[in-house]
């Protein structure tokens, strides 16, 4: 792996993120049994910016994402090597529990999954309530704040106690984003958050992502090249578990330095 892939080089000043990187990934490898899903990936993810992970199916991008909040450990066969630092803290350190990592690194999944037994408001506050926040005023404030950030407040403010599954697919996904934001994570991971939605709902989610980066660090896995080009500041191209190229999105899409990146973003394979 060429060292140039480690950090976004020649970052134009206007797209350079302020401060230290949110995530510093070094030599990350993830194995499932004997199979290697991610091979020695090193990269820095900028704070308060959107980083897109692109690549063909099976290239390890989802596994990479799940390693950032240790969700890959749900698979008992999974094993990792290397290091991930979240604002300087080693998230794989021996005395760090996965539960604590996941409170700091939230996740939104491909398929919207609001809890079917709960109302809209209960879905938003569940992460707080089950982690011991009982103050009604705090919960009410956080509900409105999260739903506003997820651009859902105006649509649901009059029926907060309606079942979450009464919402449309796009609304359900924004509810899941609000639910993830309510626990105030530092980083938000999104695993193809719009791939199951219609174009209108997709564009709402993309607008939302661009809006959210003012306060959050966002890492998004996507199959959709246009989405990566529109919504992200940095793009990492994965292929067969390796990081092929990483840099500012405009550079990856207009003048990639690797032949494979160019072939993929122009639709010649994948």
């Amino acid at each position: 792996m060429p060292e140039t892939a480690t950090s976004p080089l020649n970052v134009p000043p206007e797209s350079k993120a302020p401060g230290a990187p949110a995530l510093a990934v070094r030599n990350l490898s993830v194995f499932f049994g004997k199979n290697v899903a991610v091979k020695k990936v090193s990269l820095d993810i900028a704070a308060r910016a959107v980083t897109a992970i692109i690549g063909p199916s099976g290239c390890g991008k989802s596994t990479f994402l799940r390693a950032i909040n240790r969700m890959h450990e749900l698979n008992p066969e999974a094993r990792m090597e290397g290091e991930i630092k979240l604002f300087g803290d080693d998230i794989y350190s021996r005395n760090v529990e996965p539960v604590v990592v996941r409170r700091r690194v939230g996740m939104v999944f491909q398929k919207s999954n609001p809890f079917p037994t709960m109302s809209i408001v209960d879905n938003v506050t569940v992460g707080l309530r089950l982690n011991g926040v009982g103050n009604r005023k705090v919960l009410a404030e956080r509900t409105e704040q999260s739903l506003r950030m997820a651009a859902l407040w105006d649509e649901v403010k009059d029926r907060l106690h309606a079942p979450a599954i009464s919402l449309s697919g796009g609304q359900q996904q924004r509810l899941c984003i609000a639910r993830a934001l309510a626990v105030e994570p530092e980083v938000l991971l999104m695993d193809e958050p719009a791939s199951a939605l219609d174009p209108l709902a997709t564009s709402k989610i993309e607008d939302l992502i661009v809006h959210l980066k003012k306060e959050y660090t966002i890492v998004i896995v996507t199959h959709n090249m246009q989405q990566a080009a529109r919504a992200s500041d940095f793009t990492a191209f994965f292929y067969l578990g390796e990081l092929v190229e990483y840099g500012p999105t405009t550079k990856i899409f207009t003048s990639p330095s690797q032949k494979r990146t160019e072939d993929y973003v122009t639709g010649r394979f994948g």
Partner: protein
Amino acid sequence: MTAPNHRWRQFKDLLMRVVTFACAILVVAPLILIFYHIVKQGFSSLNFAFFTQLPKPLGEKGGGMANAIVGTFVLLAEAAVVGVPVGVLGGVFLSEYGSSKLNWWVRFAADVLNGVPSITWGVVVYGLMVVPMHGASALAGGVVLGLMMIPLVMRTTEEVLQLVPGGYREAALALGIAKWKTIVQIVIRTALKGIVTGVLLALARVAGETAPLLFTTGNLGWAHKLTEPIAAIPLQIYVYAISPYDDWHRQAWAGAFILLLLVLAINVGVRFFTRDRFQSKT
């Protein structure tokens, strides 16, 4: 050339239809016959005294099954206390924690236990509780029914928990919610109606058990304490039905009618729960 062949195929199709329909009727017919006889004989034998009076001594007319009716409810409550926590938590272990190798053995054991003849359960609890306690008791009767419920409740709980999409577990864990809270607040809550359905069906199944109670309850009078013998409807039916007296036969029919109503009521409750579940899904 094709016509006779075509007719032969039509005939085979018709034959299959008739045979399967006949088998379907054979499934329904016994239920209708049982219903018809029990309702006809049982309903006419019912009266107010049946619900309020104790069995009369041999030779006296009248009397009722008040103690057996109450006894059956007491035994079912005890069975639920014994069977539901162990069964549900065992099912949670199988679905949420166990390893595939251990699960295989636990499932295997549960399936074998499901197939153990009910009289065997009675003998086992006789040896474990009745003999050491020097006598039959309501406690022993409740325990034997509860033990019989455990494998039933465990397997249905496991099945309905497995139906909860993995996405809900992932979503909860990704919020930084601890695993046990995820299981209790998200997974079990989502599957609660299915679990209740499984518990009700297991209760309906053991409500009519007679053989295990023969060894354990004593079937006498009123039980004022759980350590005293207790009566139960199925046992009372058994005792009355094999007696040579017409009056007792009538009481047995009435008891069968009440037991049938009880099991029917539980099954209707189950229908109510399952229907509700499908409605809330759409």
